[in-house]
């Protein structure tokens, strides 16, 4: 085919390692270790050892400077042919889905026949930065022209300088953490504590049921002794969650707890995409097709929009372009950064005022059937290693569509920096 003709990109399958809680079993694993393990599991599942793939695109949100070529290094350490090119993408929590969009688009355009998307994150092995003053002194000492000058420069180091600055999950322009931002949105949309706790408990129960049904047997490869997502609490309940203290925002009226917010986690995920012919030549299954994607961003700094509200804007644009209504999907995968983020999303799309004033729609975008929403649980239960979430969701949705044998699925992922990445998959 000519390289500019557009064709369908197929999702062949996925593989991830179970997600671990911060400082848990993966405390000593680096991003590179975890991404390599996830890749090797994928290679093993689809018999790709020694194969040269079109590309591998992945990334991490928290990255050491030594990991400047993280994905390529993971490929070199994996069972894939070393001739497989790779690059890093970083779009906060949207990374995993954004890499899938990149690979799918290249396949659609005929530039590559197959590729892997993915992401990885560790908060256990997060980079710790030097205190800025110390860093400046060291840089200056390094550039010194004489030993004497170097010593004189180094003599300026003070005890306070050696306290490293740890990375904060905070927005640089507002100084507020993501939870603090979402607390503002939660209040604005009047999402109650009870709603959030009910939602979170259901996420755990659905994920547990999916494990029991063996849903993840061909989506996951155990790692370092972990065989299930460590955060999963099959026996949690609304009552248990109700006992947790709020952790974000002004004490008065605070509703967001460690139970209805995603925990800090470590993990990695990958997705195998290909042209139909490539999959067919290897007798590999096609679970679903990648249809379209839309990324949006909001001005949460100067405007009054919530930090995690960008998907509210991305989805209507995506639907319009594809001539679809919000109700035209069999499955909805909305990343559960916080229970209240999902609930706010549902509420906003049902709200005539928001839909008119912000989205410019004459009537509300619509209502999502809760029975089709995150049917196998999502980040609240599984955990959320930032860049790994997209790959987890894409593979899960593709398999759901495959098992159903027909239909469409919608993915919505909110991300730091006021961004949102959304996509549509279709059953094969």
């Amino acid at each position, binding site marked *: 085919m000519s390289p500019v003709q557009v064709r369908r990109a197929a999702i062949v399958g996925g593989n991830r390692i179970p997600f671990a809680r911060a400082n848990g079993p993966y405390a000593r694993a680096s991003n590179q270790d975890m991404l390599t393990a996830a890749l*090797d599991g994928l*290679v093993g599942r689809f018999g790709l*050892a*020694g194969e040269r793939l079109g590309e591998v695109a992945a990334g991490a949100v928290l990255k050491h400077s030594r990991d400047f070529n993280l994905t390529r290094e993971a490929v070199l350490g994996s069972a894939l042919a070393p001739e497989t090119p790779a690059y890093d993408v970083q779009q906060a929590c949207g990374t995993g889905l954004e890499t899938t969009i990149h690979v799918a688009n290249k396949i659609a355009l005929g530039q590559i026949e197959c590729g892997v998307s993915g992401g990885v994150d560790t908060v256990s092995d997060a980079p710790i930065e030097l205190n800025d003053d110390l860093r400046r002194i060291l840089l200056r000492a390094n550039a010194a022209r004489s030993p004497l000058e170097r010593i004189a420069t180094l003599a300026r180091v003070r005890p306070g300088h050696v306290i490293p600055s740890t990375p904060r999950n905070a927005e640089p322009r507002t100084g507020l953490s993501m939870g603090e931002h979402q607390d503002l949105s939660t209040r604005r949309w009047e999402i109650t504590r009870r709603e959030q706790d009910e939602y979170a408990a259901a996420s755990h129960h659905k994920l547990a049921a999916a494990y029991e049904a063996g849903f993840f*047997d061909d989506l*996951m490869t*155990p790692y370092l002794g972990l065989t299930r997502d460590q955060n999963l609490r099959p026996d949690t309940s609304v009552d248990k969650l109700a006992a947790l203290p709020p952790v974000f925002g002004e004490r008065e009226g605070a509703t967001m707890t460690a139970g209805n917010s995603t925990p800090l986690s470590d993990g990695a995920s990958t997705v195998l995409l290909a042209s139909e012919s490539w999959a067919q030549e290897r*007798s*590999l299954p096609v679970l679903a097709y990648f249809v379209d994607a839309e990324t949006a961003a909001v001005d949460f700094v100067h405007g009054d929009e919530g930090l995690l509200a960008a998907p509210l804007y991305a989805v209507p644009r995506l639907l319009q372009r594809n001539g679809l209504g919000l109700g035209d999907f069999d499955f909805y995968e909305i990343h559960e950064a916080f229970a209240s983020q999902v609930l706010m999303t549902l509420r906003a799309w049902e709200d005539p005022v928001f839909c008119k004033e912000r989205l410019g729609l004459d009537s509300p975008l619509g209502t999502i059937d809760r029975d089709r929403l995150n049917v196998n649980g999502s980040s609240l239960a599984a955990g959320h290693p930032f860049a790994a979430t997209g790959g987890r969701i894409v593979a899960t949705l593709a398999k759901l569509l495959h098992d159903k044998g027909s239909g469409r699925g919608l993915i919505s992922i909110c991300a730091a920096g006021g961004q949102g990445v959304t996509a549509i998959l279709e059953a094969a």
Partner: protein
Amino acid sequence: MSTNERDLLLKVANHPVGKQVLGRIGLPRPAPLERWQPGRPLISGPVLLGEAPAGRLGDAVRKVLAEAGSDTRSDPGTTERFKGLVFDASGISGSGELKALYDFFHPVIRRTLPSGRVIVLGTPPEEAGAVPAAIAQRALEGFVRSVGKELRGGATAQLLYVSPGAEDVCESTLRFLLSPRSAYVSGQVVRVRPVPDDLVVVPDDWDVPLRGRVAAVTGAARGIGAAIARTFARDGAHVVCVDLAAQGDALAGVANEVGGEAVQLDITAADAPERLIDHVRTRHGGLDVMVHNAGITRDKTLANMREDAWTAVIEVNLAAQERFNDALLSSGILRRPGRIVSVSSMVGIAGQRGQTNYATSKAGIIGMVQALAAPVAERGATINAVAPGFIETDMTAAMPFGPREAGRRMNSLSQGGLPVDVAETIAWLAGPATSGVNGQVVRVCGQSLVGA
């Protein structure tokens, strides 16, 4: 691992000083066993071939040895040392003629080279016709088993019964027994029977006898299963590696190493056979070889054994295999010439204190291959079992010193086998050229004293 790293005595015994010391204190002196490597000759030294009158198999042997480029002699000379001593006794029709064994072997038995091979060929007594012939042919077993115990330097002895009409299907078995692939197999009796013409398969290249074959191996994440996956891949097969999801990490490592695929599957799950069959049907359009290797132990004396220890062992080691075999046969997924090879155990033959559950399951495997041989043959396939003795794995490394040393030394080769030795034996039985061997149990035990 092609050398035996875990056995200290083996290392000491092959050190010049250690050798003398061991000899003086009367400890066994295990010899390092030669193991096959790709590109190596079938047998790395001259082979002396002898024949009793009216033998049927001399030509078959000569052909194999000639094709393999080996130096075949009929004259023993007086000083020459031999890597192989092969005697065709198929023509012996009465006990008086057994003296031919003495005449052939007596002058040369001390002249076998390290890791030498003694092979006696005969006619299955049940097919020998006259009573005196049946008696004489049966007598060969006692001779071979005793020679196995007298041989030194890692040499082995086997008896190969070839039915009339099966002369052209014994090549793969002859090759296996002659070559270093059978390093830890000794004192065994193998029967080769005739097969329909379309099942007589000769590989293009005997170095990769499994080329183009798709094989599923259970329990492939580690131990013997991982060795089977590696050996099969070396021999040209595409390996579908099956193990528990909990072993997925190691499983993917093995699958990627051998360029195969990993399938995370609990073989005891109700839908396990169906899932594996679906997998090989979509990916490969069929299956050529099924190796049932996954197995567990839950040791306790019968009085102390909990019910779940009994149930789990029977389920994993026996019942799951039965369900797989039923599904393989009824689904038609197994392509001609199909192969099923199951891993039994010496314990299944001899029994073992504290292993009533395990020995029951492993004896059941023997029953399974015997009972299924006929129905499987109707589909152009074979089913056989291997019964490993003491194999150096993580499992045996965890045994207490006393039983471990005893297990290691109580065999003609005075050492434990390696996982690859079991794997080589399975690869031979799984080969498309091994159509004539069906319903049999071959021990990989260095001719263990247990259950012999």
